[in-house]
């Protein structure tokens, strides 16, 4: 049985897959897995786009928000005592767990509430004081925020790697493998697709459609679009910017939670989860900072592109691990020809 988890995919290909490199189906499988990875990139990029559209803030903390959300979720699920390490250090006690386990759904609700509180605090304590600052200052503030949340999250829930299990099935989808096995020859056992990736795709589609429905058919959604279009005009017709910001950051928190659950189930909840923000940046550049479809299409392009590049050129000729920079280079070259990204708003400059 060919088994390759997405993350160790490249190493695996470099090692055992050489004999069947010519196999067209294997290439197809790479594309499929790239698409699935792309969905996860899109999820993170989506959070960026939402906040950028609504407040013009380039929110570097999106990745850390995913980490924080996942940490909180695990913490609630396992009944961890927040700040246990700190309390132990200060009072010399030895506490770590409350001794109960919450069902996943309750923990998710609690984690969502936490993200709402976080959104409210960010608006209240940070954004409110930074109105009218230059974009670069706001960007820096979100980097500061990311540092803070990283330290704070670890402080609250401990820094060790945690398993996240909310009941999403994992491992290869047997059904797809069996049904597609007849396509190839003797050495082809059917497409390997992780159940988790399928779930991620389904969830991402559900999330995006509900977001679109929300912004098209509700009053709040209309207000969100108005703010995204023109802050001043939105203010002048009586839309409260501050409320909108809290809502947007909460939605971004929700998106971060979903992304955190997906990535966390895949590779454990740990510091490196926050680095998915770095994966989402080239996606944003490709798709344009202001476009939700752009985030999705960009994510898919990056996902497929980097897997294909690694498969065709990176692993055989360049020594592998090209996934770290390929997306950036792709975006860079692409931007030289189209500076606003695929679907970004046309940049008009006036003197």
């Amino acid at each position, binding site marked *: 049985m060919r088994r390759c988890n997405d993350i160790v995919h490249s190493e695996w290909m470099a090692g055992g897959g050489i004999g069947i490199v010519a196999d067209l189906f294997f290439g197809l499988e790479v594309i499929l897995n790239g698409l699935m990875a792309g969905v996860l990139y899109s999820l993170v990029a989506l959070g960026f786009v939402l906040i950028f559209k609504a407040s013009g803030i380039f929110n570097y903390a999106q990745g850390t928000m995913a980490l924080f959300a996942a940490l909180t979720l695990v913490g609630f699920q396992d009944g961890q005592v927040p700040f246990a*390490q700190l309390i132990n250090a200060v009072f010399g006690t030895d506490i770590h767990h409350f001794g109960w386990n919450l069902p996943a759904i309750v923990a998710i609700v609690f984690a969502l509430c936490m993200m709402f509180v976080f959104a409210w605090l960010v608006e209240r304590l940070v954004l409110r004081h930074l109105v009218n600052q230059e974009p670069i200052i706001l960007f820096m*503030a979100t*980097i*500061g*925020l990311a540092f*803070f949340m990283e330290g704070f999250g670890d402080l609250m829930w401990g*820094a060790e790697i945690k398993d996240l299990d909310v009941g999403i099935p994992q491992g290869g989808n047997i059904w797809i493998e069996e049904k597609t096995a007849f396509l190839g020859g003797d050495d082809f056992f059917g497409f390997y697709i992780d159940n988790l990736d399928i779930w991620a795709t389904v969830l991402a589609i559900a999330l995006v459609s509900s977001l679109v429905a929300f912004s098209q058919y509700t009053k709040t959604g209309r207000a969100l679009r108005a703010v995204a279009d023109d802050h001043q005009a939105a203010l002048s017709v009586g839309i409260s910017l501050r409320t909108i910001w809290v809502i947007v950051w909460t939605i971004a928190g929700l998106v971060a939670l979903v992304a955190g659950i997906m990535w966390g189930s895949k590779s454990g909840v740990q510091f490196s989860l926050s680095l998915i923000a770095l994966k989402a*940046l080239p996606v944003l550049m490709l798709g344009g900072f202001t476009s939700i479809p752009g985030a999705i299409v960009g994510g898919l392009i990056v996902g497929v592109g980097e897997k294909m590049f690694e498969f065709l050129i990176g692993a055989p000729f360049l020594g592998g691990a090209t996934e770290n920079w390929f997306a950036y280079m792709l975006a860079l070259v692409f931007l*030289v020809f189209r500076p606003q990204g695929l679907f970004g708003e046309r*940049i008009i400059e006036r003197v």
Partner: protein
Amino acid sequence: MFYREAGDFKDSYAAELQSFPIAFDRWCYFAVLAFAFLAVPFAVNDYWLNAVILPFLLYSIAALGLNILTGYCGQVSLGTGGFMAVGAYACYKLMTSFPDLSIIICIILSGAVTAVVGTVFGLPSLRIKGFYLAVATLAAQFFLVWLFNKVAWFYNYSASGQITAPERTVFGIIITGPNASPAAVYLFSLVFVVALAWLARNLTRGSNGRKWMAIRDMDIAAEIIGVDPLRAKLSAFAASSFYVGISGALFFAVYLGAVEVTEAFGIQKSFIVLFMIIIGGLGSVFGSFAGAAFLVLMPVLLKNVMVGEFGWDTGLAAQIELAIIGLLIVLFLILEPHGLSMLWRLLKEKLRLWPFPY
């Protein structure tokens, strides 16, 4: 009382244009220089050198470089770590390929190599602006680090993938390698810092600096009044990378000694240097130093208090440190978005009247 220009008459244009027009400032500057060159070398020991002074000096150079690009020319770069790696590896290759070449020339040449690489990665800045550019410079960061990891030629095919600084001397005194004395290393770095700071100050107030600032304030308007954006932007990238490269070379040669590229020049370096210039103040030479001092000293202080005073676990202390740094950055941006250099300027304004009300 002392800090005022009244009575300080200038009788030539040169005197009018000097860096420190106020006599008190000038004397303070000379006093600091004298202290740094004459007093510190006798007092410096290994702990202070490696924990505080050397990181401060070397980060100051990198911050100066990034400030030229971001503060003066308005092009945000997140590729600093990658360019530092270029400087370090260029220095290593030069040191090992030409063992007789003076280390001073090696370091300056590695700055020049970095300037070339920086210019190449600066080319997209003509088309890409703002955040798009910031993200685009990340391409440099990831690509360069990957390159130095994968291409064995850069680390001379060593088994560990690390590069190690061979021993080199200047005027017969050992500068690099484990046997160098703290005072020698300190003075060597200090000479670079002072020379580069002097150069930065004069670059940025000359015609180049004015062109950069015009581009920063609005590049289209600058183009209309006759600033060539190609030359201005690329020269800023080149100058900035030169500084950053020298900083990287010094990081490798005199500070770390042995370097593993992902560890030493990862994306964290890029962020730290960016924080330094934001906290210190964009578009200010003093700010680069102040920011570097702040971000080097604060973690040391926090660590000493938490681990030394309270006896907490180092892991816990590291988490709290991270949270506090983040908090301080946000706080700084809210209270004084123009950084420490603005506070310094305000202080000097106050000083001019002090202690009299007017």
